[in-house]
């Protein structure tokens, strides 16, 4: 059953649950952060509308900086602005930011410890028809490897808003990952959010869980749907949502692994090097348990609808249920 203290929406499993892309949270969040702190600026590389940077631009035209189609320049410009006290958010598609400007982020932002917030939109296969070039599946890996970098993949538009506001309030480099397509808004303004903290979304009605599903990003909702189905079928399931991939909430991850003894991770990213790997790195040292990593397996994306693609690459509730069955059938 849904965890009450997570304050999720009332109509959690209803078909009329509100849908919005997490990038909307960037638009709302930067405006909110901009009101709270006059040093917040937004830089954009010719994608103001689709990144939702134009929401900030309308409110704060003098603090919106259009850099043209030049993501490398955008990263280093932002570092320069941070050097004199600004709090820059740089927005483009994740395929280019951090895909194209990785080295500028590494040197001028991460190594130099600059207070720049790197915002990658259109991450994952759910970009849809644009195809593989624009479906970034390696950004979590790229960013979490960098020392000094905080990495966040919000679960819905509301959590994305909170993540943006929280990122503005901490001093240091942050990467935030956003999606293009509308996904269920399952959290509420009352849902707790803190950088570095995981959140239990779903718990067995009675007894200890047999399996823990650990999710990041918008697939948090997919984890919930899978957990409900499993729970209806008698499998005691826990869902731990981890919007912050780095620093990972080690304590929470270890605690649920200890309780459940079986773990499945879920992310819209390569299974290699991403969130599941981050969880595995913790558990292999602290609490080795049977695990399944649900993610893209060494493949690029392709054109299609988000639903078709999530199903094809094994990222939907069907795939999660299968992974849970798999990990439960394993004898240890």
């Amino acid at each position, binding site marked *: 059953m849904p965890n009450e203290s997570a304050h999720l929406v009332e109509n959690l499993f209803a078909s009329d649950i509100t849908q919005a892309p997490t990038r909307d949270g960037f638009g709302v969040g930067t405006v909110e952060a901009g009101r709270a702190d006059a040093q917040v600026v937004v830089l954009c590389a010719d994608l103001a509308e689709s990144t939702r940077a134009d929401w900030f631009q309308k409110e704060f035209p003098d603090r919106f900086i259009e850099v*043209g189609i030049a993501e490398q*320049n955008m990263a*280093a*410009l932002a*570092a*320069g602005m941070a*050097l*004199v006290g600004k709090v*820059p958010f740089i927005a483009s598609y994740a395929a280019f930011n951090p895909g194209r400007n990785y080295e500028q982020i590494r040197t*001028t932002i991460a190594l130099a410890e600059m207070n720049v917030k790197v915002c990658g939109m259109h991450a994952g296969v759910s970009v849809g028809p644009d195809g593989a070039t624009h479906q970034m599946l390696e950004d979590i890996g790229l960013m979490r490897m960098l020392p000094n970098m905080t990495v966040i993949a919000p679960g819905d538009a509301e959590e994305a808003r909170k993540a943006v506001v929280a990122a503005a309030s901490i001093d240091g480099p942050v990467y935030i990952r956003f999606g293009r397509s509308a996904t269920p808004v399952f959290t509420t303004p009352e849902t707790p959010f803190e950088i570095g903290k995981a959140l239990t979304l779903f718990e067995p009605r009675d007894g200890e869980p047999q399996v823990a599903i650990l999710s990041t990003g918008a697939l948090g909702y997919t984890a919930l749907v899978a957990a409900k189905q499993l729970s209806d079928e008698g499998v005691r399931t826990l869902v731990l949502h981890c919007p912050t991939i780095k620093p990972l909430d080690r304590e929470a991850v270890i605690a649920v692994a200890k309780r459940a003894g079986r773990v499945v991770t879920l992310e819209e990213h390569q299974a290699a090097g991403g969130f599941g790997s981050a969880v595995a790195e913790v558990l292999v040292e602290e609490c080795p348990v049977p695990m399944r990593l649900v993610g893209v397996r060494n493949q690029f994306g392709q054109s299609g609808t988000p639903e078709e693609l999530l199903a094809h690459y094994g990222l939907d509730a069907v795939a999660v249920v299968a992974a849970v069955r798999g990990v439960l059938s394993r004898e240890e």
Partner: protein
Amino acid sequence: MNDTDLTRLEEIAEKVRETIIEMLVAAGSGHTAGPLGMADIFTAFYFHILRHDPQNPEWEERDRLILSNGHIVPVRYAAMAHAGYFPISECLTLRKFGSRLQGHPERERLPGLETTSGPLGEGLPQAAGMAYALRMDGKKNRIYCLMGDGEQDEGIVWEAVLWAGKQKFSNLTAVIDRNNIQIDGMTEDIMPLESLRAKYEAFNWHVLEVNGNDIRAFITAVDEAKAIYEKPVVIIAHTIPGKGVPEIEFDYHWHGKPPTAEEAKRFLSEIRTMGGKVPHEYA
């Protein structure tokens, strides 16, 4: 600036060159030609042009000197040490474990460096970001960005040149060390840059050219740049790589290697003759 001032600056530049040779020998690796070629310009900046305070490197009102081609940082360390940022003896820790003087500069390790650099092409965009943010806040600090000429091969340089041209900065001056060498050879063989002037002009910059080993001429050029409000200014500073050590001047093989102890002894003696002005026996 009178002749006495100029003589003083020229003497400091020779001291900076000596320190560069000493630190490179102690390090056993590093770049020789670029730092020697830029000793006059760094001396001009730290001892005449910049508003700065070596005792207070984070002073908010300071001008910002951004070194984009971080591999020539020995000349910056040497000039900073002579200006009083840290003891000259610390220069001998260059590239050693635990040193604040990293092989390529890191701002978090040594106050006064402004940026972390080495990967080429990233100084100008950072300088442009600073220029933009300082202008937003109505600040009067000037920003100077020093780049190499080989570095102009990098695409990001032109992204930044394009953007800075759009912004019509009056507070940003770039300096290109036009010494015509890069690691693999002469710039015009590896990747022809000419006409650099025409390229920058086409990107809406004002271009000045000067002999970068002539301290007086360089300072005059910077004064002229300050007087131009309509556009960012780039000073193409023609320098002699390896300047001060005639036997290595113009030789690209000295771009990326340090002298041996034996060579250093000879080089130091050549520097002390100040280009033949002082007889060897007194040097």
